[in-house]
């Protein structure tokens, strides 16, 4: 709870400032590109993450701060769980997950490439915005697990650094509206469904903005990028559709406290932990099984055994 409103105090927060110039990922990426580095760039921060490079090109980025390609595909409903499981089982062990998804007609190749690309840009932006302490390279080893959905052939680091700087600059402007990574926006849920299809995404964000979720949480729950969600929130905050610095924003809905029905008036034992009392469990109200109430078939049906009906009195 402490510090929950740090960034609602105004455009000059005291936490890690998301200024483009101070972002250490950009220079580290450019260095990796120049050295044609293959391996991982470990980003230390909160939450930090990893950027995977091959021959100086960025092929994947993983962080807790933004949804990866799998979340984007599944949570948005673009790929069904059943299709994903089939393609994963067929392709993932041999590093052919992307090929399986496309060959089975689950998603178009251009659609898949866009999602993978979006996920990398979003991950690097989210890591930089959340605050980065240091970046360390870790050369690739032969037994490293490769990312399951890489961008092929990869993103040139200059392009990624340039785009990240542009996004960070946009995020700096959102601070004036009180929108940051720690914002937990609160909206009155719209009572009517959206009239225009274009409004559907804003509608979805409003429905998720319950004062508990950060932009990152909303991005995960909708299967969309953090940058897209934050810009949506900033726009709607500007229009007054959302409250972004709700007092006690971590509060609603209030946490639940256990009802003390189990204490049953025994104040001498009113300890913090509720206690079960013998005989109060509803299960004990089930009458004991009698020979007549037992099912006529033996209970152990899974094993291969005599399938004949048991003779009377043969059970047990």
């Amino acid at each position, binding site marked *: *709870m402490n510090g929950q409103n740090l960034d609602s105090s105004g455009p000059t927060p005291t936490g890690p400032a998301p200024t483009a110039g101070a972002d250490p990922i950009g220079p580290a990426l450019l260095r990796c590109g120049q050295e044609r580095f293959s391996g991982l760039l470990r980003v230390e921060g*909160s939450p930090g993450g990893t950027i995977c490079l091959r021959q100086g090109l960025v092929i994947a980025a993983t962080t807790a701060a933004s*949804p990866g390609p799998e979340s984007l595909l599944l949570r948005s409903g673009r790929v069904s769980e059943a299709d994903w499981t089939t393609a994963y089982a067929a392709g993932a062990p041999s590093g052919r997950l992307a090929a399986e998804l496309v060959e089975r007609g689950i998603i178009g190749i251009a659609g898949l490439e866009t999602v993978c690309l979006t996920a990398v840009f979003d991950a690097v932006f989210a890591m930089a915005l959340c605050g980065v302490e240091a970046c360390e390279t870790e050369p690739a080893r032969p037994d490293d697990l490769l990312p399951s959905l890489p961008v092929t052939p990869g993103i040139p680091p200059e392009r990624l650094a340039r785009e990240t700087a542009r996004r960070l600059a946009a995020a700096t402007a959102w601070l004036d509206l009180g929108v940051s990574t720690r914002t937990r926006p609160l909206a009155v849920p719209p009572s009517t469904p959206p009239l225009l299809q274009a409004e559907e995404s804003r509608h979805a964000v409003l429905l998720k903005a319950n004062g508990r979720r950060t932009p*990152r949480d909303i991005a*995960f729950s909708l299967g969309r990028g953090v940058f897209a969600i934050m810009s949506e929130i900033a726009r709607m905050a500007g229009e007054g559709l959302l409250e972004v610095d709700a007092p006690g924003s971590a509060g609603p809905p209030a946490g639940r406290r*256990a009802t003390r029905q189990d204490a049953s008036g025994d104040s001498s034992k009113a300890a*913090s932990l*509720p206690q079960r009392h013998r005989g109060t469990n509803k299960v004990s109200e089930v009458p004991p099984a009698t020979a007549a109430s037992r099912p006529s078939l033996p209970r152990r049906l899974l094993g291969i055994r005599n399938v004949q009906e048991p003779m009377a009195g043969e059970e047990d």
Partner: protein
Amino acid sequence: MSHEAVLAELRALRERTTGVLETAVASVDGLLVSADTEGARPEVLAALSAAALGLGKRTGHEVGMGELREVVIRCRGGYIVVYAVGQEALLVVLADEGLDVARLHIESRPTVERLGALLAGERISI
């Protein structure tokens, strides 16, 4: 109130750990103490978590892998992690699939310690 303190611990864990969505504290036999939940039914979550913890402990014991650290359940939409709080309580954490599980284990240690103290403290004082 100690229940407020328990709730404050739960909220603090959610706010400082990326990916954590809901949490609850229950006794090991599944009765709810306090919950910072949103969609999950707290009483049901408490009962199921207690069952999961018990099953984890028994399985670990059966195969000789020693003391239980925590129970981690991974689903398509995220994680359910159950930690024992002392001998008599548990902490259950629901998180989305973006959770860094290793980080949660680190972040939850002090929470488990403090919850243990809060629960034990009240038990002794009353």
